[in-house]
């Protein structure tokens, strides 16, 4: 049996979602732009889905919801589209802990001549509000793009305040938030609390819809050019025939998610149970502890050992998780998020993320707590930074830690 604790990476698609989608692969295959009566079923299903998604994020108008292929496309559309629509503004603000979908795009825009300010975080992963305020430039800042919740640590950013400060500084500064991790875990209300947010992105596959469908909320009047040019779809804001089965699946997942948000306290209790269990192991730190966090995410740093080895042994025990370790990243760099939080190198590489969903049970958590001490002990035995006799770090490790 597999214990799946990697829900921030992707989620299982439940039967209800698959069943909702199935007719739109088969008998209802019509292009929603077509004119015949049958095509009404496709067009109608899409517009009904748009309504469900709009209410899921509390959008004032249904027409403000655009369907995209993924959150990465939504992010690129919002940021690049805003840049194209506002050529006089050349300054962008983001954070050091964004997802690569925003960071890599900002690096590219920097190469194109934009100025980018990246706001740092403290050791709990909370954004530096003062640095943010200082970075805002009335009359010059094009867009602020700051995520609603961090994918690695689950730390939640104060989007309402960040957006309000940007608009108070200059109402023409656009505000974008990548809410990929927040959607389905926190209630989002773009009509009231988040009324100053112009663009919001999220993807379906983090909320139990399939991969390949994303959403961009684009507030009426927010200056933005299309990213994909083409037909009249999405009122000319995103060309390309609409992905009806996935749009329908996404709407179903949003419906089911409403329930999941209410389930937050139960999941938070599971998270707290996991963290209390893990902290019984010596030299374990919970990254982001003390900050406001998503209910489902635990990022634990096991000092003096390497995360890939932990994941391998967890996998043997039937547990799926992920790591901020360099060896798992593909780029051979350790997590930029944990580095930005000044987590020492001796812990960054040994950081493991457990991310739960409403399908996670107490038994799952207890199993992790049971196997983890042995896994950590096995690896520490091999570590040059660990003194097996004293069951404590060697002095060399402490030097590395301070560097």
């Amino acid at each position, binding site marked *: 049996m597999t214990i799946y604790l990697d829900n921030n990476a992707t989620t299982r698609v439940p039967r209800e979602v698959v069943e909702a989608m199935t007719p739109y692969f088969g008998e209802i295959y*019509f292009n*929603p*732009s*077509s*004119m*015949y*009566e*049958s*095509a*009404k079923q*496709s*067009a*109608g299903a899409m517009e009904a889905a748009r309504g469900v998604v709009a209410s899921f994020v509390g959008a004032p*108008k249904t*027409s403000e919801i655009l369907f995209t292929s993924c959150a990465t496309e939504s992010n690129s559309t919002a940021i690049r589209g805003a840049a194209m*629509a*506002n*050529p*006089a*503004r050349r300054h962008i603000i983001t954070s050091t802990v964004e997802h690569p979908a925003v960071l890599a795009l900002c690096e590219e825009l920097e190469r194109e001549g934009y100025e980018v300010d990246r706001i740092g975080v403290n050791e709990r992963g909370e954004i530096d*509000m*003062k640095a943010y*305020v*200082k970075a*805002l*430039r*009335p*009359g*010059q800042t094009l867009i602020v793009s700051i995520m609603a919740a961090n994918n690695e640590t689950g730390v939640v950013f104060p989007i309402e*305040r960040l957006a309000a*400060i940007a608009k*108070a*500084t*200059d*109402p*023409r500064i656009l505000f974008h938030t990548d809410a990929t991790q927040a959607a389905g875990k926190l209630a989002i209300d773009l009509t009231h609390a988040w009324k100053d947010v112009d663009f919001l992105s999220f993807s379906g596959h983090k909320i139990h819809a399939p991969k390949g469908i994303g959403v961009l909320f684009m507030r*009426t*009047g*927010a*200056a*933005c*050019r*299309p990213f994909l*040019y083409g037909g009249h779809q999405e*009122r*000319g*804001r995103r060309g390309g025939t609409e992905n009806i089965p996935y749009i329908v699946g996404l709407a179903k997942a949003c419906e089911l998610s409403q329930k999941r948000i209410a389930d937050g306290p139960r999941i938070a209790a599971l998270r707290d149970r996991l963290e209390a269990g893990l902290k019984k192991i010596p030299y374990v730190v919970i990254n982001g502890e003390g900050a406001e966090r998503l209910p489902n995410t635990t990022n634990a740093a096991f000092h003096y050992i390497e995360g890939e080895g932990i994941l391998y042994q967890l996998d043997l025990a039937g547990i799926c998780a992920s790591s901020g370790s360099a060896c798992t990243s593909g780029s051979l760099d350790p997590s930029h998020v944990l580095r930005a939080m000044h987590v020492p190198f001796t812990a960054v590489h040994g950081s493991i993320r457990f991310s739960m969903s409403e399908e996670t049970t107490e038994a799952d958590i207890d199993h992790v707590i049971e196997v983890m001490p042995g896994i950590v002990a096995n690896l520490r035995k091999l570590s040059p930074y660990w003194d097996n006799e004293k069951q404590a770090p060697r002095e060399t490790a402490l030097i590395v830690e301070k560097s």
Partner: protein
Amino acid sequence: MAWQYSDKTKILFMNAVNGNEKSHFGELPDADGVGEHGSIACGDAMRFYFKVKKADNPVDDKIIAAKYSTFGCTSAIASSEALCEIIEKGEYTPIEALKIRNEDIVQFLEGLPSQKIHCSVMGAEALEAAVADWAQKRGVDLEALGVHLQSKEDEGSRLVCTCFNITEAELKRRIVELNLHTIDDVIGALKAGGACGACQHAPGGIQDLLDERWGVQESLPETAEKPKISPFQLSKQIQTVIDEDIRPMLADDNGDVEIVDIKENLVYVELTGACATCPGASGTVQYVIEKKLREKVDDALRVIPV
């Protein structure tokens, strides 16, 4: 988008297609007014005929029959039927008939999908041309009677705002005539772009037309209220007021305040101590600090809590 036509629209269309006797499709060989609008190039064209019961004074002629032939979509044909029915029922004079707007046709059809509204406009335009024809044949000087026919320059122009059916030509003309500089100006004057908003920044949309006419506007903050004193004096004086007037007051409640930054007329403050955790404090304190700073330093100042 698939069809979303009202039953009324479908019935009128089917009457015409089936040659039902209720249909107004056909020609009036001895028509008193004939007008055309549209062209095959733009996909919609209508020829409209009416016959009048002649009066001694031509101005009092009453329309007694109306017919049409239309090249166009379902809603264009239904709109043509609607126009003929409205005119015959109303027993209008040709000049009275000019008051029929495309909204009347849409209403008669019990609504049209937003992207089909322009079909209803064609009828009104063809009617106008037919009235002009009648006026010429009967020697009526419309201008002298104070009747102005709409400009023909918008004909066949690309539709920009599909919600309110406003074309590129009309927008371009109005932007100059009414001296419209911003999207808000356009929405205020013409409604264009004011419903779904998608055409505001679309390629070839309202912003593009504004930029084309006025040039790309340099982005300036709308809060261009500048303090009257130098930045150095400003920050010194603000600090003094905060230290001498505000902090002692907050200290009574174990609170404190710190200036985070000052940008032109914007003062960013962070509340600390008891104020930071007191719900509702930020609004009150913002107001109190702002009032004091405006009174003692510069009345352009605004306080933003961080």
